[in-house]
């Protein structure tokens, strides 16, 4: 049984078909990549998966349970968490607080605990802070917990987004262009981090990425979207040789065939 199963997912914005009957399955322990030219519908796919958009048709099953009509915050509870392509950190909060926000659903203290400052409040809060520190260390942000999130360098902000997403204890982690704007060595670091997560912090990862070195380097399975349709799927090598993929990326039309 796959961890995530998407069948016939369709999303339209007015006349524009952003996703056209997309199927996708993510197995346990897998790093899957979703690639495609700009505007192919990759981020729309994420937004639909996490409940921000309501699909027009199709079925999303996570751990064999349907996510139809489930609100985004409940989907996070269920075990899917994401990062954003255009970084969406809480700029006016510290690095540590950003990660703690990610734990919101898991801390489990009630209003009475908070106002009465019960033993459970301290135990849970301190436990959360400890885990947040561990996650910050994992992504390489140890010692930066007091800084404001907005003051971090770009690459650090991307890593903080990963730590914040991990804080919600997701089983499936969705990464939207995790290495965008990073230099090659930073991207290497991010690749190593993603591989380290599998089986320890998350069960599977689905990433959207433009950097082919990253995609080909770490993913077990690659799906290619073009104009909202899945045009190819397979191992990185298979996808790399697929004629339709090359066409979608390089824009080789009929003229090229005739030439």
């Amino acid at each position, binding site marked *: 049984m796959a961890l995530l199963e998407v069948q016939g997912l369709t999303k339209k914005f007015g006349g524009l078909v952003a996703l056209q009957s997309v199927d996708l399955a993510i197995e346990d322990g897998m790093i899957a990549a979703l690639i495609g030219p700009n505007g192919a519908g990759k981020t729309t796919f994420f937004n639909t998966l*996490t409940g*921000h958009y309501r699909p027009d048709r199709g079925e999303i099953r996570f751990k064999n349970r349907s996510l139809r009509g489930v*609100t*985004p*915050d409940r989907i*996070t*509870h269920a075990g899917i*968490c*994401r990062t*954003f392509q255009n970084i*969406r*950190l*809480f*700029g*006016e*909060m*510290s690095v*540590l*607080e950003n990660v*703690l*926000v*990610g*734990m*919101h*659903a898991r*801390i489990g*203290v009630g*209003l009475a605990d*908070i*106002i009465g*400052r019960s*033993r459970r*409040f*301290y*135990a849970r*809060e*301190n*436990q959360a*802070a*400890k885990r*947040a*520190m561990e996650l910050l260390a994992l992504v390489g942000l140890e010692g930066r*917990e*007091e800084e*404001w999130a907005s003051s971090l360098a770009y690459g650090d902000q991307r890593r903080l987004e990963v730590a*914040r*997403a991990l*804080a*919600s204890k997701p089983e499936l982690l969705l990464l939207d262009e995790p290495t965008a704007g990073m230099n090659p060595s930073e991207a290497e670091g991010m690749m190593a981090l993603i591989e380290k997560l599998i089986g320890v912090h998350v069960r599977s990862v689905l990433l959207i990425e433009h950097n082919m070195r990253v995609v080909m380097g770490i993913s077990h399975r690659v799906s290619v979207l073009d104009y909202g349709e899945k045009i190819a799927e397979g191992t990185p090598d298979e996808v790399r040789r697929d004629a339709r993929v090359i066409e979608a990326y390089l824009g080789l039309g009929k003229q090229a065939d005739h030439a």
Partner: protein
Amino acid sequence: MKNRIFTAGLVGYILLSSLLVYYFPQSVLAFLAFEASLLLIYYAPVSRAVKLSLAAATLVVVLPLIGTINGYYLEIAIQVGIFVALALGLNIVVGFAGLLNLGYVAFYAIGAYLWAIFGSSQANEFISGGYFPLSQAWFFVFLLLSIAAGALTGALLGLPVLRLRGDYLAIVTLGFAEVVRALVNNLDKPINLTNGPRGITPIERPPLFFQPLLEGLGVAVDPAALYPLYFYFIVLLLLLAIILVTRRLEDSPVGRAWKAIRGDEIAAVAMGIPVVRMKLLAFAVGASFASAVGVLFAAKQVFINPESFTFMESIGVLAMVILGGMGSIPGAILGATAVTILNLQLLKGLSLWLNALRQSGLVLTLPLIGSLDLSRIPSQFEPAKYERMIFGLILILMMIFRPRGILPPQKRERRFDPSTSLRTGKLTTGGDRGEN
């Protein structure tokens, strides 16, 4: 060492300013100097324990003593306390959760009318049996009840409107407040619930339950002199409770959720925060504070009518929060104090001074202008008449030079300290700071 010098300086300043008030009981300046001592305590580089004990001594001992010299100062302190409490409540909604609420005064009105109706003979109009006014002891019950009533109305208003954002929410809350005001203004028929624009009076005050004790100690009790002191301490206690609850909420998953929603709602949802529920909570908590303060207000004033709950009141409290610094507890306190003192003391004081000048009949000879007969200064120049204008100017200047307020929220010193045991009653990240 430095600590000691500053402590001594603060104590000296407090004593000196209190003496000033003692010798010049009518001087606004003397009382302002005294009030400034609290600000000095807040800013002085002394330890938290010193700050807390000095502030406590000033508020619990010195200020009531000054109040026995000039009762008006107690009245000012009570008014300041009421507005600080309102500003703290609104700060949760606007400052923490980022929800623009332009109708906050509605919840204040709900609390005030709750006690006014049942704490006076008004309720006899629609409940037969002559049970009303309820005995004074019920005041405390209603104080608690009003918290629930405020939270409930806050949540009820929140349910349909919290899916709106920004400007839309502001307009709906504004409308809600006007609806509440129109209701209390017109619910004198067919059943007389609120007595309409004539207002309700007399409203019962809280019981002097300590009277026998004082008499036993041989202290003569004059309720007229005692009530201001009594209200002052009730306000102080209520305020302490509000500050405590607000701080604890701020340093908790709830406070972080509010700030996250204010920062980026989409990201907050994606992190698993139940946004609508958290917004409702902010609305309910803010409303419950306002409602409790309303009960106190009704009991203190003995008379209330719809005029006390106009849109300008909502705007006034909002301005206090903005002036002080949105999302900052010390900011809300300072903003409310500064604005209230400005209105009640500074502008009135300046007007009195201008009047005195006029009556002195002096004729000044100035260069360029020539001679100026002070008695001919028109009464339109009285600063008290420009309250709103001066206030508006201050707000404009603030927005230009200090857009985040006088005391904007500070970056929290929250270094994780692994040496703190995970299970003790202390946060490893050093939250739970003292009250200021």
